[in-house]
């Protein structure tokens, strides 16, 4: 299982803040998981497009496209941060 979280604008446009999914076959890293989510089409395809400034954290650490994703991980998708 993967615990996927969405924050801020993404939570609104995707209509959910969290979901649990089985690790999709063939997905081994952040880029792969993002590509898999885009195949859902609609808002998923649009919001997670490679041209959008989406940030990803794996197990609460900032991640990159080649960061490994394993069963049991918490993966969060969100816009660039704007705190402070």
């Amino acid at each position, binding site marked *: 299982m993967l615990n996927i979280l969405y*924050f*801020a*604008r993404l939570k609104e446009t995707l209509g959910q803040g969290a979901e649990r999914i089985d690790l999709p076959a063939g997905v081994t890293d952040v880029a792969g998981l993002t590509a898999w989510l885009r195949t859902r089409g609609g808002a998923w395809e649009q919001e997670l497009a490679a041209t959008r400034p989406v940030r990803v954290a794996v197990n609460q650490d*900032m991640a990159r496209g080649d960061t490994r994703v394993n069963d049991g991980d918490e993966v969060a998708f*969100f816009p*660039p*941060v*704007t*705190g*402070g």
Partner: protein
Amino acid sequence: MNEPVHPAALAAGRTEIRVHEADFDVGREIAALRAGNAGIGAVASFIGVCRDLNDGDQVAELVLEHYPGMTEKALAKIADEARARWDLIDILIVHRVGRMLPTDQIVLVVVTSAHRGESFAACEFLMDYLKTQAPFWKKEQTPEGSRWVDARATDDAAAQRWN
């Protein structure tokens, strides 16, 4: 800077990170951090405040969302990075979440050290990194409705100065 750092001061130094809805009292926070440590010669601090104007529009209120768990972890990492770069005594980071109005305090960063150069540099570094690395998001309420605040290119540039 050539002077050895006071060992007792180093021993007494601490890192404190808090994320909560409640407001904070700057005077009380600084006093608590400094309490009893005579090795501290410099206290640099920064308060980020909610303005009534952003990108040319009136802001009626601000809602700060965050990523519980990761927020504290990210801030602790940033604090560790500051300690690796400078000889510091204490680091305090308090970041509020939830609803805020113009003039409300949003964030407080306080750094203490023996000499001023270190605390100034570390305080600005912590704010620059917090602005680009810590999972907080601002949503503004303006006369045109609510909108998520966009990340600023100037904040990325500020953070990159430290690389």
